């Protein structure tokens, strides 16, 4: 399977899981996972910075339409798109997300970096979205529990999705 085909498949997977499953089962008031980050954070780290900002914005805007949250996800994703290349730039050659051909982060001893990378980006994204949604109201009683709960659930779902996807790709190769 070609790389671009794989990303289209991941995008469709994110959309279906987010809107046909997660948005319908109502995981809980304090847990609102954003599975579409799977598509964004697993994009190759060696894409140009401007393309990263552009792609992240487009994806955020696309999901905004379906969340009815005009602009909130686009804003958060654009920020992630700006900082992601700076964080992953040193790992371009050794850790292109999870590209089995070039060697995964696991193989290169980058497991800890990858987990911190994923967790911190989800943390930043959730915080940005929640703050923009509520403008800081009920920070202690609502935003912080929702922020941490959503981040944890999103992180777990991303790791599960990664295992499902890349194991499938590995076996189908």
């Amino acid at each position, binding site marked *: 399977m070609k790389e671009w085909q794989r990303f289209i498949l991941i995008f469709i997977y994110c959309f279906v899981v987010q809107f046909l499953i997660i948005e319908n089962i109502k995981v809980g008031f304090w847990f609102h996972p954003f599975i579409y980050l799977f598509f964004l954070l697993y994009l190759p780290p060696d894409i140009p*910075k401007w393309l990263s900002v552009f792609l992240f914005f487009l994806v955020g805007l696309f999901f905004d339409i379906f969340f009815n949250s005009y602009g909130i996800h*686009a804003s958060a994703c654009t920020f992630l798109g700006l900082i992601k290349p700076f964080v992953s730039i040193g790992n371009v050659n050794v850790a292109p997300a999870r590209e089995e051909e070039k060697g995964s982060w696991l193989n290169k001893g980058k497991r800890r970096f990858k987990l911190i990378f994923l967790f911190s980006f989800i943390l930043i994204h959730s915080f940005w979205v929640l703050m923009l949604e509520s*403008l800081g109201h009920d920070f202690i009683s609502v935003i912080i529990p929702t922020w941490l709960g959503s981040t944890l659930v999103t992180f777990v779902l991303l790791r599960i999705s990664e295992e499902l996807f890349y194991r499938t790709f590995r076996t189908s190769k």
Partner: protein
Amino acid sequence: MGSVLQFIKTYLHLILFVIFQVFAITLVVRFHAFHKIFFFNTSNTVTGNIKSFFNQINEYRNLRDVNRSLVNENIYLRRFLKENFYIQTKDTFFVNDTLYKQHYVYIPASVIGNSVDKENNFITLNKGELSGIEKGMGVFGPEGIVGVVEDVSDNFSLVMSLLNSKAIISPKINELNLSQGKLVWGNRSPYYAYLLGINRYEKVKPGQLVVTSPYSKNFPENIAIGIVEDVQEIDGSFLKAKVRLSTSFSQLREVYVVKDLFKEELNNINNQIESQN
């Protein structure tokens, strides 16, 4: 040219980031009512503070005009003092003070932002909800009517000036005791407004004083609006009068906001009548 292109090429990601963020935040403010209110309240407060700062500087420059205006108003009001009147009758009157309930109170405020050259002009006042100002209250100055409060934040108010295409005032021609028609701005001059919808058989003439009508919802009766300068017949059945406004909008500094103490009671009874119909 080359260096500009090089700069854009180097910082394209940052430029795109700024553009996309502005676009996204604009969408947020545009499509979320809560964010819209928060944004406009914050921007009103910020711009109000900035205007307030510059206003403090301008106030010193305009103290002479303000004093002159206040002196004129004092002279006008002193004419109504009891000491200025002579009682000719020997009859004795008993006045029960409880009959005279206060109808209006006035909240003084300073103008910290003002425009006169747009199609829809607004005035910013340095007092808001915390001073008791509410949306819909009338505003007048030492020389006459000014406008109606359109929006309020905690510390500032936005007044729809009479120089606004949407402003409509209920007028009365003092000499004729005629409350008819409506007063609209209708042109781009800060000195004139037009009186429309008056029956052609009414004896409206240049030089007559136009004041607020007793039917006005925002103002007490008899606040000066202006003086009729020219009268024309429209469509053979109505008169159109050109009114020279008494307020010098470009020199406006101190104003009074009208608080109608019976407004709620009046609204309640009007609502009852409307619901019965």
